[in-house]
């Protein structure tokens, strides 16, 4: 038989005004298992808590009920008091007789409130009789972090975590870190040179003693859970020994074969052995295997011949490594919507219709034209450029429903860069709305219009075609209610930002959610913007959705701070309210595995001594389980239960109703 103490709080007059607390204390004495009851003015005050602790000792209590305010208010307080008095804190339950009783039933005769308080307290007592002492789960935490994606968000996160003293593994798919930001010429609204602010960070990441770079590598598999992830990474063969290579460039100078440069978006060729761009980190080339004559046909090998340190290695193979980390930051970035969506704008058909990133390359002093704005078709300087905004964005029928957010700003930037480089050039911008929320952003756009003479036309473009070496743009100007036809030399599309191809596959490997556009879901859009439903996995940058550089950096830092919190101690303390499987009655139907929103339930095998599987069982990973209980309701045989909210506890409460 339990020895329960019941404490009724008067909360000054907050409860006592409408509840006869003395009567509640009297009545509760009659319940089997209750050995002590008491009402008091302020249970949460320090004399109140002292009284409570003394009662525990005096009456040898093994559980207690505090009928007081909402558990959201003082459950922690009383459980702590319980613990310091020597009983398990989970043997303390709160009956909410203030927020859900005395404050909402204003009957001054106290009858209404007293009757309800009696019921609520009695139900809680019966529930408490079925409580079990619980211990918080302690989970060891591996202090290394994995960053997936070496763009600005990933670099920022890596640097912050590394500066915090934790080891970081930065995995990048392409041969160099830097991401999309490395392609930009200048950045709005300050017009800093993108390379100038990014390159030092890239170098810092390369040199940081706590950061290990794994470029040209991809995450293949992720197992485990918060604090204890096992990550399988494929390091693709570079065919260049990273240890030996000095990055001198002799190999790519001499390589006789050329391909379109991915980094330059096809505006320039690169060699078959190459680094994506001159400031690549690491400055070690890779061989584009499918296009290499040596690797495909065994003929050539010039690069190997000219390589002083003999770093070229045609025998190199992919290497698969397993790494253990405690936290993961996903910062895989964005892509531009593919060409085929913009038939009416002539993209891919008309050479002088380009996208925003191509324009960035044209404007970049390290770009294919050395920073001169020249048309791709004939290399002439365009005298007029039409910028078309919302190419694909905010267009549910042909593109995507969302706003790509950064295009208004970079288009304004483009018009400025154009005017700065071609002083008599005229730019036209077709827009739907100008969205320039942000510090100094509106002023920036006004500057483009007022100082740099960009002609903004509110309307959509209906058709783009070539005529006599010009690109003709037909559209509407809805403000003057007129049809517009512009003979332009070049057209720049502000193409929609979309998620990376394969974003969904990676999300499935990680067990994180994604929306219909395959952008990753944050745990809570307001309060947990960089967390995911999978504990220990965080998000940063444009893999969440379109955002600009400062936001990406902020998110990188935010994710890093989350990682640092997680890795600040050797063990993580987790609430013991987790599900638990009864091995005898589990059917291995995996309903719980499927229903669990957190992938916290695993399929396990029970083997005999010879190693034959004799049974299969569901097993809850306490590290991942958040205690929602969805699995319990899904389990037909009730072979799974939720500690702290067991079937027995609920049943007891219903039975005392």
């Amino acid at each position: 038989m339990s020895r329960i103490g019941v404490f009724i709080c008067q909360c000054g007059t907050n409860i006592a005004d409408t509840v006869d607390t003395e009567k509640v204390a009297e009545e509760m004495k009659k319940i089997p298992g209750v050995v002590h009851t008491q009402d008091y003015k302020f249970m949460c005050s320090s004399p109140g808590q002292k009284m409570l602790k003394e009662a525990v000792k005096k009456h040898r209590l093994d559980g207690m009920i505090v009928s007081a305010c909402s558990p959201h208010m003082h459950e922690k307080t009383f459980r702590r008091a319980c613990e310091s008095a020597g009983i398990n804190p989970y043997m303390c339950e709160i009956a909410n007789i203030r927020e859900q009783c005395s404050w909402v039933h204003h009957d001054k005769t106290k009858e209404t409130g007293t009757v309800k308080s009696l019921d609520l307290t009695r139900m809680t007592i019966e529930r408490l009789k079925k409580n079990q002492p619980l211990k918080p789960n302690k989970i060891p935490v591996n202090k290394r972090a994995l960053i997936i994606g070496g763009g600005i968000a990933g670099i920022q996160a890596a640097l912050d975590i590394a500066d915090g003293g934790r080891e970081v593994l930065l995995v990048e798919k392409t041969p160099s870190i830097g991401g999309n930001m490395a392609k930009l010429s200048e950045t709005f609204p300050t017009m800093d040179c993108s390379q100038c602010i990014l390159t030092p960070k890239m170098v810092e990441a390369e040199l940081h003693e706590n950061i290990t770079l794994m470029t040209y590598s991809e995450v293949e598999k992720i197992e485990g859970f918060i604090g204890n992830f096992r990550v399988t990474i494929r390091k693709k063969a570079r065919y260049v020994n990273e240890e030996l290579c000095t990055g001198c460039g002799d190999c790519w100078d001499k390589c006789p074969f050329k391909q379109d440069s991915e980094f330059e978006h096809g505006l320039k060729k690169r060699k078959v052995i190459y680094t994506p761009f001159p400031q690549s980190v690491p400055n070690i080339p890779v061989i584009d295997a499918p296009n290499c004559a040596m690797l495909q046909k065994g003929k050539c090998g010039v690069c190997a011949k000219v390589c002083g340190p003999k770093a070229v290695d045609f025998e190199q193979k992919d290497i698969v490594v397993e790494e253990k980390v405690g936290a993961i930051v996903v910062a895989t970035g964005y892509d531009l919507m593919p060409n085929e969506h913009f038939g009416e704008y002539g993209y891919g058909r008309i050479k002088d219709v380009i996208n925003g990133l191509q324009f960035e390359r044209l404007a970049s002093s390290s770009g294919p034209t050395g920073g001169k704005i020249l048309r791709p078709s004939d290399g002439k300087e365009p005298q007029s450029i039409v910028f078309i905004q919302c190419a694909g964005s905010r267009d549910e029928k042909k593109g995507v429903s969302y706003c790509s957010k950064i295009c208004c700003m970079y288009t304004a930037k483009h018009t400025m860069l154009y005017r700065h480089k071609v002083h008599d050039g005229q730019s036209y911008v077709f827009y739907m709305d100008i969205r320039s929320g942000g510090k100094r952003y509106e002023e920036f756009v006004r500057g483009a219009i007022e100082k740099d003479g960009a002609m903004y036309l509110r309307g959509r473009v209906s058709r783009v075609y070539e005529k006599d070496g010009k690109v003709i743009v037909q559209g509407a100007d809805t403000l003057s209610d007129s049809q517009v036809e512009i003979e332009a030399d070049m057209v720049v599309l502000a193409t929609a930002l979309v998620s990376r191809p394969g974003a969904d596959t990676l999300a499935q490997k990680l067990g994180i959610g994604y929306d219909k556009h395959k952008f990753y879901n944050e745990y809570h859009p307001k309060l947990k913007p960089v967390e995911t439903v999978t504990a220990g996995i965080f998000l940063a940058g444009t893999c969440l959705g379109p955002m600009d550089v400062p936001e990406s950096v902020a998110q990188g830092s935010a994710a890093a701070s989350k990682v640092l919190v997680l890795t600040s101690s050797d063990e993580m303390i987790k609430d013991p309210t987790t599900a638990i499987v009864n091995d005898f009655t589990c059917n291995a139907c995996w309903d719980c595995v499927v229903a669990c929103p957190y992938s916290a339930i695993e399929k396990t095998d029970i083997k005999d001594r010879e190693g034959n599987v004799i049974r299969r069982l569901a097993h809850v990973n306490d590290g991942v389980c958040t205690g929602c209980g969805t699995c319990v309701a899904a389990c037909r045989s009730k072979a799974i239960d939720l500690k702290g909210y067991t079937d027995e506890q609920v049943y007891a409460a219903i039975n005392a109703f």
Partner: protein
Amino acid sequence: MSQENTEETQATETTETFEPKIMAFVCNWCTYAGADLAGTSRMEYRPNVRIIKLPCTGRIDPLFIIKAFENGADGVLVSGCHPGDCHYTAGNYHAKRRWIAFRSLMEFTGIDTRRLQFSWISASEALKWVDLINNVTDEIKALGPFMDFKNLKG
């Protein structure tokens, strides 16, 4: 147990004096907090509801509801976070599916569906909670004691 109640209710309670017993299964994060807010805002509502707090509507099993009726509940209320707002991301979606099937079953077996009410109430919707409790209480009061279940032979 219920037999006792039956005699008692039949003997003494007419619709005038009848005070229904209503059991509410609510989630910790939205509806429970919403009900707390009603208190903090000193709103007033009918005193007939007894809450059982659960972490999430996903935890709520039809067994709870059946047992509540067996134990003499005249009405049962189930409430949690609005779709999309679940603290555990999806528990309420699971719950919704379960309720769709269970309610259809109740309807088909002739269990008065007015005795079982479902609602989404967020942590800020104190007023909605108050209205819900008042409406449900009045509705069930008008329906009278849930004799279908109370009369079941034990």
